[in-house]
């Protein structure tokens, strides 16, 4: 972008950048460029939109942090809670569409003629990146079994790295007990062995041996902060979460609200 500017303007920008730099600020040498234009102007847009429509009827794109500048990444639900799409847009390039599940990840690319090609790799699995033989990693199928098909309950995701999620686990468990709904606790999949052993000793609860490995909970944001509480009803997990430690009444209010609704 800078190379398209007249040389004298370019020099002024460079000099002002150096000036800011010398003052210890991070020089801003990029002008305002709304990043939403990246996905709108993507190559092979028609073909990629068609592919996405064939994979899900959902239109609710959830924008997430991209791993590079001038890139946009979106998550999109499919009809199956255990499969999500990720759509990656990079400036001037054709998008990449990923189908993510515990079983496999299918990467859809588009060639220069906008013809789609597939690459299949192993599934979403924290137990490979963070192996831990003493813990059970709960994937979507196993989570479905834990939730059952006609019960209500909460899923409490917690981590030894965030002390309040450990301290207040009992508050959530008690709220679930009071409302006579199920309580499932899942541990941060990245938690270290040392921390887990300490917490298992401290709490002495059987909850400590389950770790989150669900694509659905991950995509909904279940590992971004601890604790995070989801509500489930009839085997369906709420998209709405309660993030952080709330007081008893707020927890009860949220459980009642979500279990009383269609989620």
């Amino acid at each position, binding site marked *: 972008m800078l190379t398209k500017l007249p*040389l*004298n303007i370019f*020099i*002024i920008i*460079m*000099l002002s950048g*150096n000036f800011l*730099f*010398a*003052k*210890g*600020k*991070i*020089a*801003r*040498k*990029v*002008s*305002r*460029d*709304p*990043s939403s234009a990246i996905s709108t102007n993507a190559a092979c847009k028609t073909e990629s939109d068609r592919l996405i429509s064939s994979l899900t009827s959902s239109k609710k794109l959830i*924008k*997430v*942090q*991209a*791993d*590079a*500048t001038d890139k946009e*990444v979106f998550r999109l639900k499919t009809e199956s809670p255990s499969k999500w799409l*990720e759509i*990656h847009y990079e400036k001037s390039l054709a998008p990449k569409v*990923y189908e*993510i599940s515990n079983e496999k*990840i299918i990467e859809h690319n588009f060639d220069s003629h906008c013809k789609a090609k597939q690459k299949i790799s192993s599934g*979403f699995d924290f137990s490979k990146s963070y192996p831990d033989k003493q813990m059970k990693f709960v994937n979507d199928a196993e989570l479905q079994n834990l939730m059952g098909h006609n019960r209500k309950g909460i899923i409490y995701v917690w*981590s*030894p*790295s*965030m*002390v*309040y999620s450990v301290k207040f686990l009992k508050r959530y468990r008690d709220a679930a007990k009071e409302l006579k709904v199920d309580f499932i606790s899942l541990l941060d999949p*990245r938690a*270290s062995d*040392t*921390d887990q052993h*300490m917490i298992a000793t401290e709490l002495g609860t059987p909850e400590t041996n389950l770790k989150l490995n669900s694509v659905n909970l*991950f995509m909904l*944001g279940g*590992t*971004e*902060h601890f604790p995070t509480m989801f509500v489930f009803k009839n085997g369906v997990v709420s998209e709405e979460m309660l*993030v*952080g*430690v709330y*007081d008893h*009444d*707020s927890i009860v*209010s*949220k459980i009642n609200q979500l279990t009383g609704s269609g989620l």
Partner: protein
Amino acid sequence: MKIFAGKTILIFTMTLSSITYAANCLPPREFIASPANNGGAYLRVHPTGDYVLYTGGRTSNVEIIDFTKTNDSGAIAPVIIKTPMKNEAYPVEGRWDLIASPYDIKGMSYYSFADFTSAAVENKLTVEPVFSDRTHNQFYHSSAELPGGKKGNYDFRTTLWMDRWTQDYSVSIDAAGKREIKTKGARYQICENLFAPLKIAGVTEVADIRTQMAGLSNEYLNLQNTSTPAVLARRQEIQTLLSPLQQRLAHLVPSLNQLTLSKDGTMLAGIPSNKSTTHVYKIKENGECELVKDLGIRTSKVSFSYPYKNELPMVTYNAEGNAANNYVRGVYLYDLQTDKSFPISTAAAESASYPGFTKDGRIIYKAIDADRKAGFVRADAVSIVTNGAKCATKASASTPETQKKYENNDPSRFTQ
């Protein structure tokens, strides 16, 4: 001709830059092995980058990691300073004169940061707070020094998570270094105009509920010193009455999760519970707020950069990975002025804490390397963002003028 002159200046500037570069080079990313990993992800970064404040995951104890010492080979040898602080203690951002530690016996206790780094204080665990506030006391809080402070006095603001209750304070420091800290005005709910506005449907109900709850709470407090069966029964009844009111209020008024004040206390970032993305607000003089930016994505608790004179600051945070980077959690910088975000971390050292800015534009975070060993990364955002991850000159903290300002705790450094 003008262009030629400009080129000459440019070449001269680049040459000068190269000379400084050679003399004073900061690596873009510097991994500092940690002497111990107590598991916590809650980190706040001192303006000089010489210290971080760190709440352990296994306990709620707060430690200070001191990066100023080196070993025989010249590598940084972090030293852990144990403190009596607990519960995600949070610095009063700005000059870091005070650290706010909630749920102390006396309430929110404010400790002098200098007491923990002073060689004169042998057992840092015995350090006493310089001020405590029993009323304004809760975790998930944020504190920052307000603009206009001087060497001997300054104002600061502490905002709590629950209902955004906020208290401003004034600090006077005498010649001997003794502080007098006073509350400044009554507590208020910051940004209330956005979270429980008076002119939307349902607000009458919010106001009614709050009035009822205030009445019941006052009655409960007045009954605390009596324990006859009738009073005990009424207290129990009040608790029963309060619970559904609180539940209804929680349903009607969203909370601002992961809230953080800017380094000068004039902005606030967080995730409204009725939305799913990180919002940044400007705080007006009267405590009302206006939306500055919706980042459009969910982030961790952010850390603001130190303010720019006439431009919006930057924020840094961590966020989950995606299929392209094998779901490695990363640290990012978002420039509120240009709406651009930049990756700061690499997959070689996965982010394991909230990151924070130093005054000179570096970002520090806890990280786990490929061998699953914990440490800290000091990333020079200046070189990563503007220099293509090449080693760059050390920024403002390296200039004698700025160093002097740090040593004197001179707040004018905010407006460089």
